[in-house]
């Protein structure tokens, strides 16, 4: 193993043993709660569309909004400073503290100040800084970094937090329960807030028209930090600006549901600072008198000062980047982290860069810290796409990860061992692309060769020395079974056999798309699909068409994937013109047609292919709905446990498989894990094998003892084979006659 791979694998193994289980339990809970909250809220999808449109327009108008905001805040009596970068922002805040003679400062949770490393700058300037969000307080005491953008201390157990507090503060009675620790922290931090000279908050949203800002919290500390000290400094990214409070509605609908599964957070606060709230000097014995006139006044309190620090730090460049701009729509809810199987397993110290963590972090890190930071964890996004449904502003997070991967590939140095796979790789990528990526990205070519020389290729590939070489140079983990290439491909089989439904008798005509896995490896599921369709009077064609490009895309090889897309479209367009439906067995291939091809093909072509394409069980469902009889199909076992492919879930395909199996007489139990962990090539890679298996355990636990387990994706079938032993069929194999 290369030393870099070894180091990464060791780091992941460490997290799997330590922080992962703690974080996993908590974020899986939040993920389930998000589903439930979205289910309770009828307008979930409408609000997402609205929020998305508002963010798109706001980022497009950003320079004007910054100026409008500046005028509004200044008219209200506050100050706006636009900081070019972290050093600039930190200098402004520390100089402000110096001018005011500030000795202590309290903060509420802000990822943007983490990005700036503001606390270090304040410490260097001699300002005592206290984090008042309890999670952030724990992380500050432990001198660690947040492991989740919403729950910074999710990686800490109650016992660890107790040890930390007891060691730091040496209370008379050691702290033990969550209740005791919370009370202690509240009292300690309450004093810090009351004596602080400056309060620093972030801002979840800022409104240009009125100069207002919103904070969404559960603890009440953000409001105390904002209003207790006389000086309030809000530090936030320029992308947080919305035109006006009128635009706030969909974000109030969404942010808490997406973040924690709460219908709304405990405190959704709007400030138009400086506010009218009286300043409180807790050392003074002067009574405050609140007459009726004061109670109804909203004039700013004269003693208050407000500074809004708007941070650019790479955001303007992100805004100009057509591929990564969407990052700026992010409202920092963490739903992409919570819905991510790999994040659930390792947490943000594995799936994260210098500051940010989770799927969207790739965009943030590339934008604010640079490609190196993004490259540290970008591989952990498998493109499973479960975050796409979770994101309240509908950011295509897998695409951002793919683009960054592509750019990282292009920056890589040519490797000495390129010749090993060069012969295999007729791709469009630069030399220097990592060998494992080139190998997996050219899966179709590999499969073709493997099939042509099967079974010898399989014997060779299985041989110990071959596996050692593959592991050493290609990073293919030797513990993983390799795909068994079949000598007779699906296309060859069908060519010999021909269609069994005459054109005149056919209810419909369809192309069964021979994706590379179905064509070369899992040929039986392709044959089953043909039989099932024919049983329902469909005249089937299985043309020789290139693989979808999923394999290269997953390695960040966008040009190669695009090349595949053009060929696939050319190979299918005439069939579509002839009125044939396109039926796809492999969900990851269908997801290419339905999602990614819109970025790779002319829009009209992408739409045409997407409109004509169906997942095989979806198609069977449609045939049954239109008068087809389940009696024509085979009889599945009485009880089936079914795991739906991650990308199939995102396309909402699971219900069709369940309905068809049930129509054929089976009772079906489904898994609720987001992904099996295999994710194409991911689980083959030596660096990630253990992570992949760890993610898979969750699924294996759910299906332990089930007599019949079925899946829809090649990866899921392979992973379940490995986890449960025995062959895990595709669902269509259970209903084919």
């Amino acid at each position: 193993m290369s030393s870099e791979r070894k180091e990464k694998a060791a780091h992941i193994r460490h997290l799997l043993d330590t922080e992962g289980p703690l974080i996993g339990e908590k974020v899986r809970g939040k993920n389930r709660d998000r589903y439930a909250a979205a289910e309770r809220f009828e307008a979930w999808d409408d609000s997402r569309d609205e929020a998305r449109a508002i963010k798109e327009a706001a980022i497009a108008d950003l320079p004007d909004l910054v100026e409008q905001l500046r005028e509004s805040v200044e008219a209200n009596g506050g100050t706006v400073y636009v900081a070019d970068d972290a050093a600039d922002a930190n200098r402004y805040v520390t100089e402000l503290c110096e001018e005011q003679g500030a000795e202590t400062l309290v903060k509420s949770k802000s990822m943007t100040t983490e990005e700036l490393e503001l606390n270090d700058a304040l410490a260097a300037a001699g300002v005592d800084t206290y984090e008042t969000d309890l999670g952030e307080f724990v992380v500050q005491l432990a001198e660690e970094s947040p492991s989740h953008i919403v729950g910074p201390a999710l990686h800490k157990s109650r016992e660890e937090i107790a040890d930390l507090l007891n060691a730091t503060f040496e209370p008379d009675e050691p702290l033990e329960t969550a209740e005791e620790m919370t009370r202690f922290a509240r009292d300690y931090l309450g004093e810090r807030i009351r004596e602080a000279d400056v309060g620093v908050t972030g801002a979840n949203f800022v409104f240009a028209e009125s100069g207002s800002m919103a904070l969404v919290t559960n603890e009440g500390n953000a409001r105390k930090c904002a209003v207790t000290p006389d000086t309030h400094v809000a530090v936030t990214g320029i992308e947080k600006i919305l035109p006006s409070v009128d635009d706030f509605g969909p974000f109030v609908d969404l942010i808490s549901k997406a973040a924690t599964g709460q219908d709304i957070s405990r405190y959704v606060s709007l400030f138009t600072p400086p506010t009218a709230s009286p300043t409180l000097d807790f050392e003074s014995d002067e009574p405050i008198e609140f007459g009726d006139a004061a109670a109804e006044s909203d004039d700013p309190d004269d003693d208050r000062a407000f500074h809004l620090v708007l941070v650019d730090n790479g955001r303007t460049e992100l805004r100009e980047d057509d591929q990564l701009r969407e990052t700026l729509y992010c409202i920092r809810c963490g739903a992409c982290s919570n819905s991510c199987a790999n994040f659930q397993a390792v947490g943000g110290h594995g799936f994260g860069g210098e500051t940010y963590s989770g799927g969207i972090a790739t965009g943030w890190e590339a934008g604010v810290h640079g490609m190196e930071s993004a490259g540290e964890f970008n591989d952990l996004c498998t493109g499973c796409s479960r975050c796409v449904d979770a994101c309240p502003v509908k950011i295509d997070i897998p695409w951002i990860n793919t683009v960054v991967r592509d750019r990282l590939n292009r920056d890589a140095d040519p490797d000495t061992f390129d010749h090993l796979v060069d012969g295999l790789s007729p791709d469009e990528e630069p030399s220097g692309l990592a060998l494992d990526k080139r190998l997996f990205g050219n899966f179709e070519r590999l499969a073709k060769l493997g099939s042509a020389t099967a079974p010898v290729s399989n014997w060779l590939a299985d041989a110990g020395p071959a596996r050692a070489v593959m592991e050493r140079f290609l990073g293919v983990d030797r513990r993983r079974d390799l795909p068994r290439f079949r000598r007779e491909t699906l296309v060859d089989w069908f060519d010999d056999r021909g269609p069994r439904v005459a054109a005149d008798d056919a209810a419909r005509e369809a192309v069964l798309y021979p994706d590379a896995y179905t064509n070369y490896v899992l040929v039986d599921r392709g044959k089953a699909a043909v039989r099932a369709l024919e049983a329902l009077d469909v005249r089937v064609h299985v043309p020789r068409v290139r693989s979808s490009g999923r394999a290269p895309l997953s390695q960040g090889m966008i040009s190669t994937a695009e090349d595949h897309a053009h060929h696939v479209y050319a190979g299918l367009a005439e069939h579509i013109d002839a009125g044939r439906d396109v039926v796809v067995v492999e969900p990851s291939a269908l997801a290419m047609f339905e999602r990614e091809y819109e970025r790779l093909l002319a829009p009209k072509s992408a739409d045409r292919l997407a409109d004509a394409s169906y997942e095989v069980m979806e198609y069977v469902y449609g045939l049954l709905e239109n008068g087809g009889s389940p009696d024509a199909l085979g009889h599945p076992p009485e009880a089936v446990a079914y795991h739906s492919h991650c990308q199939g879930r995102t396309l909402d395909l699971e219900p069709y498989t369940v309905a068809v199996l049930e129509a054929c007489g089976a009772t079906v139990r489904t898994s609720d894990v987001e992904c099996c962990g295999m994710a194409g090539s991911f689980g083959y890679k030596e660096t990630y094998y253990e992570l992949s298996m760890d993610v898979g355990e969750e699924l294996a636990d759910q299906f332990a003892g089930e007599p019949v387990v079925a899946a829809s994706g090649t990866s899921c079938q392979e992973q379940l084979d490995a986890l449960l032993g025995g062959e895990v069929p595709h669902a269509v194999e259970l209903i084919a006659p």
Partner: protein
Amino acid sequence: MTATDDFLDALDDLDVSHDRTTLDGLSATLAAAVDDPAVGVPLHVDATLPDSVATTFTPGELQDAATGVTPARLGIAEYGSVVIRSSAGGDEPLSLYPERHVAVLDAADVVATGRDAVDWLASEVAAGRGSHVFATGASATADMGGLVEGVHGPNEVHVVLVEADTA
């Protein structure tokens, strides 16, 4: 179901207790609802605070108060939220510092949804009243390894709903 019914149901779900009263009964209801020592902001409805609720106090007394009584400018039935305005009267610190927050809400000010509340908020901002909080239940955290209420804000919220006297 009226918006009031929905609102009261949402309060139950949040473990927020409530009283229903009229303007005439408000002072007595509040006297029974507060823990001593109590501080308060003069009310936005036509009633006076009971004698047990001080409206003049030092910051230290605010810190030590068991109860803070404030107007709630709006109630949101969808969430069981009360909307507290940051006026010069100190609604905001009084709703935050004491352990128990008693919010006085005119039943006519209950709206159905979060969107209704944001519409109202936008009109308030336009009218120069630009700082409010939607407060939903007690302050809470799970950061110390288990859900605990009463972190930096109150650990008890009690709503006094003032309804029209139909008698």
